[in-house]
């Protein structure tokens, strides 16, 4: 890592484990206001993370994983991501994700926009969709 001028140091942790701790080229994260990519020299940035897919680009390839709610702090070429949980593609149970998506869709159609439960189910739907999306991407790249 001699000339690591264009690398950023990424730390991705959950209460369960330290998932990623390495120098990367860039990382794409699902922020509250949409996906964003962090490259070296990013301005200080603090955002909520919502369920979605994080794409980590290393010098020799990239990795994708699902993340749930949390925070990301970016400053001085350091990215700290704390989320409640993460899943790699091979950890996802596609049937369970499908069930969760169907259930959340059903709930959401029953609940009103301003119901207290609405945000919760919206969140679950997002998680389920992120999982399914990641699985389909993996399938696409495998064939």
């Amino acid at each position, binding site marked *: 890592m001699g000339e690591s001028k264009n690398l950023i140091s990424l730390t991705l942790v959950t*209460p369960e484990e330290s998932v990623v701790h390495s120098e990367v080229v860039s990382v794409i994260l699902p922020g509250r206001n949409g996906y964003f990519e962090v490259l070296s020299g990013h301005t*200080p940035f603090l955002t909520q993370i919502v369920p979605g897919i994080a794409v980590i680009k290393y010098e020799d390839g990239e990795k994708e994983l699902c993340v749930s709610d949390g925070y990301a702090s970016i*400053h001085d070429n350091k990215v700290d991501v704390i989320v409640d949980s993460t899943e790699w593609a091979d950890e996802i149970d596609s049937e369970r994700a499908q069930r969760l998506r169907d259930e959340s869709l059903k709930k959401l159609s029953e609940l009103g926009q301003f119901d207290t439960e609405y945000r919760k189910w919206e969140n679950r739907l997002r998680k389920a969709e992120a999982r399914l999306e990641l699985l389909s991407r993996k399938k696409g790249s495998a064939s």
Partner: protein
Amino acid sequence: MPSLRAIKRQIASITNTRQITRAMKMVAAAKFKRAQENLIKIRPYAISTYEILDDLASRIDISSHPLLSRREPKRAELVIMTSDRGFCGAFNSNIIRFAEHFIKENSGKYESITFSCIGRKGRDYFKKRNYQLRREFVKVFDDVSFETALDISNDLIDNFLSSNLDEIILIYNEFKSVIQQRVTSLTLLPIIPRPRDSDANQVDYIYEPSKEEVLNDLIPRCLAIEVYRALIESAASEFGARMTAMENATGSASDMIDSLTLKYNRARQAAITKELSEIITGAEAIKK
């Protein structure tokens, strides 16, 4: 010289004690393993969270959120983490000594010092001595849950926000190794950022979705995680301390049994020799 029977009774009693200490060591070891696993899991998360908070505090204007405000510290609160049960060596007395020392040193600085005691031992101690106990939590260490940590931290946050408390200090045992715990104090509130070497980078963050929303959620979350980590550190330390204490006790009991057995055998041999010489003398007397 004590009688043979007395020594035998003593040996039996110490053997019983050894059995108990050995069993307690096993129990502590099992609990310790679980606590240590939890600790290994949570540490990196807690450190990252704390770094975010720390960095935030150094960049942001302290008037942006009530939890970042710093007042003249008049009312301090010590959150003291001890164990619920004894038999863990100097674990509790170290904490209590540290706390009392702290009170003595700082009593002039604050108008009042109140206490939140987590763990029965500390609660009993401070209650007996008429300290101002504000809240107490017992039976949390067997299975430390995040809910408990939230409960504790929310209470502290509420009191800080309503200006009931100006400074909150956690005192707990930090886990080093099975045989080593370090009494640590940590100022939970107000949030004091570490001094930086250069202030060239002190640009405020860009927040998403908004500064208020992020801070309202992030700061309490960070504090709860900090409390949670302290609880887990304390639990791991406690079980580690108990394990070593019980191992030492088992060792001492074994030593005592060894020396008593030696004493017993000597006494027995002396008795046999005495009996023999009596028989021989008797036989000699009959011969004549």
